[in-house]
């Protein structure tokens, strides 16, 4: 990049998609620049001279390698828009940065006003099949001398245990390295019940920036490593995972660690321990501590007021407090602006430290300080024998019984709302009876289906997380055909005389959709939109949409060959030949067709694409 670019009288400069690491300092002379776009380059930092561009209104630096949006962003008075997605930002903390320019400015302003303190806490999440020894491990981390009872009761829901250890952390900001010693590292150990029923809620608790431990019992061979590793990798944004092999009766099971490590970059290793004799326990604890200390958010600078409020909330013994009480606590510790207080609660929510759904008209009035208070209440419903035997159907009267304890008093509406927020149940009219679809019968009810002229799409997943279909049912429950064509793994929806059948085939890792009727395109569009919305809650989900082949051979088969929709459309746009890979039948030989037919196929496909 030549120096003379700085001499030009530019208002707009775009250098998208080059291989630039730096730019000449002379660019600080662009005193009239309003728009600067540096996306898709190799910049390790935002070039420092940008802070001198007082006229800058829009800055875009997406998909580079920048870690920090520096405090000098406050010195750009006219900046209206800052785009930086696709960068590994950790300062301000990602949860703050992702809220956009105003949140970033707020953060730096509060740091400048109130001073800074450093974050030194994290979640340790323990997973595994029921009975693998998760709770025993959690207790032994907290206290090595903990006396394991012979018959440890199975954990229902989630237990959270607080644990501290002394630490020294290093932090780097504005190119400066700081060593912070004599600190306590605060850990919340999340001990999950292993039961299948809880899997549907994983996406709310398998948080980013946590350390994961997968406990497996060496006597049993039931641990589905691949499921656990995939779900953690997908939801935790690359957080480290350790396998802890719990040796009972001194047996060791071989796991193919090198093959698992090749597949899962976040797998740190496997350690064996015997929780009865404490053999190997020291190594397990030391390794976990090291992983906790190396998490990227550890040592992140926060406005000192945030840290003080965080500590006050931690000390608070209450399960939940009202929004007013929360705001008062913030005020007490030096906050003045309401928006700053709400920014902090949003941050704590995103970190999984407390639950505060600010966008929900009912739940916004409550800050749940102990998330396990909420999740336990939710799981009590799903674990309730009465609800289970009623195939997921329950009433308000039953909720009053299930949530009769003092700690839930007066909060039934909020808890029910929380269940709906987690897409675990929906209301049948008139808001008195509810259904938790994952407890529905697995038997598909009988109904007739007209196979003629309908639309068929298959969603195939490289990994299908549990709970998508039940959440889909909750999201679309107002369309369920006759209010009852729904079962544990599928549903039939009805709208304007058209019907859509949506069925999950878990072992095949796919969801099948058939739609038929006069407004089938609109209905398919609705189904696709709801599925897409669920897909986005799994950040790294990989899937493809397939259309069934209609060649003679495939029409007779129950499993016709599937064309990936995106590829099919690409081929059609380029008028490439389309052939069934199973029967080798040439479905569309462009050169043989008239112009009318070519356009017809293209219209059909484009239309189909439109409704997806």
């Amino acid at each position, binding site marked *: 990049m030549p120096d003379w670019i700085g001499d030009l009288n530019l208002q*707009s400069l775009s250098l998208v998609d*080059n291989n630039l690491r*730096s730019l000449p300092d002379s660019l600080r002379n662009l005193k009239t620049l309003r728009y600067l776009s540096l996306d898709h380059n190799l910049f390790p930092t935002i070039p420092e001279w940008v802070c001198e561009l007082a006229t800058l209104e829009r800055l875009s630096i997406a998909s580079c390698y920048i870690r920090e949006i520096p405090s000098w962003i406050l010195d750009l008075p006219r900046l209206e828009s800052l785009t930086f997605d696709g960068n590994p930002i950790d300062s301000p903390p990602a949860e703050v940065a992702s809220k956009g320019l105003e949140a970033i400015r707020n953060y730096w302003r509060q740091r400048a006003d109130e001073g800074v303190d450093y974050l030194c806490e994290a979640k340790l999440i323990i997973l595994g099949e029921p009975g693998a020894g998760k709770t025993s491990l959690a207790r032994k981390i907290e206290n090595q001398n903990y006396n394991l009872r012979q018959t440890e009761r199975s954990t229902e829901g989630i237990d959270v245990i607080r644990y501290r250890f002394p630490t020294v952390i290093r932090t780097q900001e504005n190119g400066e390295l700081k060593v912070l010693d004599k600190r306590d590292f605060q850990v919340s150990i999340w001990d999950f019940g292993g039961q299948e029923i809880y899997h549907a809620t994983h996406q709310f608790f398998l948080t980013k920036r946590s350390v994961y431990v997968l406990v497996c019992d060496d006597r049993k061979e039931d641990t589905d490593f691949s499921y656990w590793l995939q779900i953690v990798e997908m939801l935790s944004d690359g957080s480290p995972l350790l396998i802890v092999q719990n040796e009972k009766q001194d047996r060791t099971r071989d796991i193919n660690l090198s093959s698992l490590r090749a597949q899962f970059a976040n797998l740190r290793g496997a350690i064996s321990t015997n929780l009865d004799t404490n053999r190997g326990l020291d190594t397990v604890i030391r390794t976990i501590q090291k992983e906790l200390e190396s998490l990227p958010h550890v040592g992140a600078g926060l406005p000192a007021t945030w840290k003080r409020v965080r500590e006050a909330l931690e000390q608070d013994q209450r399960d939940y407090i009202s929004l007013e009480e929360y705001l008062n606590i913030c005020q007490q510790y030096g906050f003045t602006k309401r928006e700053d207080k709400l920014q902090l609660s949003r941050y704590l929510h995103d970190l999984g430290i407390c639950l505060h759904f600010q966008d929900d008209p009912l739940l916004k009035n409550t800050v749940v300080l102990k998330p396990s208070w909420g999740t336990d209440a939710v799981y009590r419903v799903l674990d309730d024998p009465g609800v289970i035997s009623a195939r997921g159907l329950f009433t308000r009267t039953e909720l009053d019984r299930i949530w009769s304890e003092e700690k839930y008093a007066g909060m039934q509406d909020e808890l029910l709302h929380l269940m709906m927020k987690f897409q675990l149940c929906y209301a049948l009219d008139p808001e008195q009876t509810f259904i938790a679809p994952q407890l529905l019968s697995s038997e598909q009810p009988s109904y007739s289906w007209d196979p003629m002229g309908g639309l068929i799409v298959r969603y195939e997943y490289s990994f299908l997380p549990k709970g998508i279909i039940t959440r889909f049912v909750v999201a679309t429950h107002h369309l369920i055909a006759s209010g009852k064509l729904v079962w544990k793994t599928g549903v039939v929806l009805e709208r304007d005389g058209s019907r859509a059948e949506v069925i999950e085939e878990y072992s095949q890792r796919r969801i099948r959709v058939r739609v038929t009727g006069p407004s089938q395109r609109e209905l398919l569009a609705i189904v696709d939109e709801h599925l897409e919305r669920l897909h986005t809650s799994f950040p790294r989900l990989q899937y493809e949409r397939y259309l069934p082949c209609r060649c003679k051979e495939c029409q007779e088969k129950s499993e016709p060959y599937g064309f990936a929709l995106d590829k099919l459309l690409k081929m059609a746009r380029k008028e490439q030949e389309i052939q069934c890979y199973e029967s080798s039948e040439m479905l569309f030989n462009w050169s043989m067709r008239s112009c*009318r037919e070519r*356009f017809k196929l293209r219209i059909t496909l484009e239309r189909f694409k439109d409704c997806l």
Partner: protein
Amino acid sequence: MAKKSQEMPDVRVRLATEIIQHVRRRGGAWLRLKNLELTELPDEIFTLSDVQFIDLSGNKLRTIPKKLWDLPKLREVRLVANPIEVLSPRSRVAIDLGTYRRCHTSLKPQNINLIITRTVSEQDVNWWFSEMDAIKGPSKIIIGGLDVGIDMTPEEPTESMRKILDSLARLDFVGILLLRGLKVEVVPGGIQQLSKLHSLNLDHLNLTNRAGLDRRS
């Protein structure tokens, strides 16, 4: 007006009409009707009150009805690779050099976005260089690929493009200059001479910081 093509013109017009209706329903800002061999525009197009950009590249249009410019939000119509013969002075268009050569007298320089791709002909370039000091236009020029993305490799410029790149200093009337998706190892030095330039876009060029490539002596 040319006679409509004999081979199934209705299918293309119908596809175009469907696309227009679709864009209208969605209130879309973009309308793309590329490579449909259209000889005239379907009437539905005049009802698009939200559309801002229309791409009509690769059709067989000889002109654009004046009333298209009545669309309230329309900002630009892209007309690359059409046998355009005449354009109204109200036109705000993106056109290739051949069309520019045929129509420039009736167009305002600030309303033209000149697009120079690999298909630019030597004759048109020669014509432009012989006339440009007199025409002093247009004020917005794109050189390179139109549909380039971040996963594409920059293309080698053709001889004719190279000739323009080497003489950029002569374009001292240009306000907005975009070089896109081309293999150029250094930022062309001629840009330094462009006194009216206020917007410079050097996207998808593979520019690097490697020493030696940064400066031209």
